[in-house]
């Protein structure tokens, strides 16, 4: 029997999402911004699993699997872009590459 209150799981997801959001806005290093994005994706996954257990349907977990796929694709492209930016600017500071143009 599942005794975990779903409300607390949603609150946990909200706190984690806020943490990731603050990280994205505060940090200027691209690698840290990608890590904060991972935190936000995980927070969304927590919320989905919580509601899946509340209604006892597998759909929430299926969407979490899709979130995993999206995160893998995002990280692969994002990190290769980070490497590319580092080759061009010798820096991964988003303020320094804000003048990026064609």
């Amino acid at each position, binding site marked *: 029997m599942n005794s975990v209150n779903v409300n607390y799981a949603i609150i946990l997801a909200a706190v984690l999402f806020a943490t990731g959001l603050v990280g994205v806005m505060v*940090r200027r290093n691209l690698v840290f911004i990608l*890590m904060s994005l991972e*935190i936000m994706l995980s927070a969304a996954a927590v919320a989905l699993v919580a509601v*899946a257990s509340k209604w006892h*349907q597998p759909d929430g*977990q*299926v969407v979490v699997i899709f979130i*995993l796929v999206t995160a893998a694709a995002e990280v692969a492209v994002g990190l290769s872009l*980070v490497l590319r930016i580092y080759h061009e600017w010798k820096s991964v*500071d988003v303020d320094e590459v804000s003048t990026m143009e064609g």
Partner: protein
Amino acid sequence: MNVLFYVSGAIAVIAGLMVITQANAMRALINLIVLLLAIASVFYTLGAPFVAVLQIVIYAGAIMVLFIFTIMMLNLSEAAERRERGWLASVMWSLPLVLAAILLAQFTYTLASTGAPSTAEIGPQAVGASLFRDYAIGVELASLLLLAALVGAFHYGWVASRLERGDE
């Protein structure tokens, strides 16, 4: 179950705060791995063992390796690190170790306590049936997305290595 959930949630929040306040990328990454393991534990307590295992294998296993390789290739300069350290308070190195030890204790406790399987659990069978019956088109789209990401990441890496060699 309840206590496991609260402890794992607290670990996840603490590790999340450590990720966004660390100056050193590698330390932040270790905290991020602890965060993902704690979230896998939260998944288990919420009755999703399949997603918990996927979280560990794919996130903590595969995606984090990508991060580690990128950070090693970037080899961030000391100056940038010192600047980030100036903006944010430096924190202890041993904390992720303690958090991971608590998670390990939870894990062994869960393995040791052979209670009846929770009825609220949604097992891999139900998830798989839903995934490949109701969401079959989603699986196809996910494979397409992964292929596009593979081609895109390969292209960026290829162009970067070509620029480095100097033949435009």
